[in-house]
């Protein structure tokens, strides 16, 4: 059995029957999954890999913190608002900004609206 270490610490091997699904569809982004199945059809090893990197972390360096949400939001076009709100919170934490309760309520509304749109909207179609 030969094994191979992935850069992020997972071990791939060629034991049993190796099943590779690449690309995984019906997700946002790009992903590869591979598993090793033994003679009893039991999965003994499974590794999933995100196969795309855009470097938003690198791009964000040195930018105006007020703009960070817009960059972060582009991580995912399906759950955009969640990333944006999280980014805004991160900037506020770093700068010790306390937001008023009303602002927090508005953000909660935005987040719940997004969740309803994403989950219920997806059910409909």
């Amino acid at each position: 059995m030969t094994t191979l270490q992935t850069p992020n610490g997972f071990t791939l091997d060629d034991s049993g029957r190796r099943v590779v699904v690449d690309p995984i569809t019906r997700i946002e982004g790009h992903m590869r999954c591979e598993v090793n199945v033994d003679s009893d059809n039991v999965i003994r090893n499974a590794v999933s890999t995100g196969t795309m990197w855009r470097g938003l972390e690198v791009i964000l360096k040195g930018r105006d913190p007020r703009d960070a949400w817009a960059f972060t939001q582009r991580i995912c076009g399906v759950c955009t608002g969640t990333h944006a709100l999280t980014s805004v919170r991160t900037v506020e934490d770093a700068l010790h900004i306390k937001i008023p309760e009303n602002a927090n309520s508005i953000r909660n509304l935005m987040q719940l609206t997004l969740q309803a749109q994403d989950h219920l909207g997806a059910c409909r179609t």
Partner: protein
Amino acid sequence: MTETFYEVMRRQGITRRSFIKFCSLTASALGLGPAFVPRIAAAMETKPRIPVLWLHGLECTCCSESFIRSGHPLAKDVVLSMLSLDYDDTIMAASGHNAEAIVEEIVENYKGNYILAVEGNPPLNEDGMYCIIGGKPFVEQLRFAASNAKAIISWGSCASWGCVQAAKPNPTRATPVHQVILDKPIIKVPGCPPIAEVMTAVVTYVLTFDKLPDLDRQGRPKMFYSQRIHDKCYRRPHFDAGQFVEQWDDAGARKGYCLYKMGCKGPTTYNACSTVRWNGGLSFPIQSGHGCIGCSEDGFWDKGGFYERLSGIQQFGIEANADGVGGTAAAVVGAAVVAHAAASALSRAKQTGEPKQ
């Protein structure tokens, strides 16, 4: 035999009345006269569905999200029935090698007779290793899928310009489609994401008339990208009157004054947001109280902060390259905008300076 759009629609229970309604709606969205309604209808009744490969490179899927939420529900159904959307890894049932086999099948069997829609763009650094699909760099899949395509639609700012991953320092060397595929007609539909109705209208036009719509010098359909957000903005009268929001929570913000001083990029952004609007014509960013960030413009991430007003656009022209001409033109527009704002403010000052009658 392949079904026509009309047959598919009837099979899905869409009435002829609704069908004709859709045709006239599309004609008006495309800026065509009523005379074109029968032409659209005839084309849809007789033409077989055209296969479409919808590839995803470095992207966030916001273009797909926008597309499937087209405000007119019928438009969405019709367009999805019109296209034989054979490959789209975000919504297709097949996965793995079964999915990849479809690309090969279409490229071989429909030579010169399928449309390639691209969402996202290929990274060229490290031989394209920053985006891998089916074990191969995306740029290879893109080149292969483009090889026999009739035309290419570049969805969104990623495919059209590069967008966020191409923002400085562009670590993956993300490159827009037209710089990689040089021998095919390409129609750019920029925006982050583009407006759903614009996307469906572009597809309808291409399928109906069997050619690309009129494009401007940058390759965008003229009917949707020939005006600036500012030209048709409902807050424009406030700009002309010199009434600006100065702080996010001031009285001007509550009254819906112009957002130019808060960094609105409407005056330099070519898109249809202020006329077509979003979510079925419900609203658009400026209407919700935030300035335009200029998401349909080339390199909008690197044109100064989103909250810095346009007068500070000396950022234009820092990079001297083949786009220099376009950059200069944009800078001229910017200067004109500043002069325009100054003139508006001046005339306002004059008015207030005059004694009351």
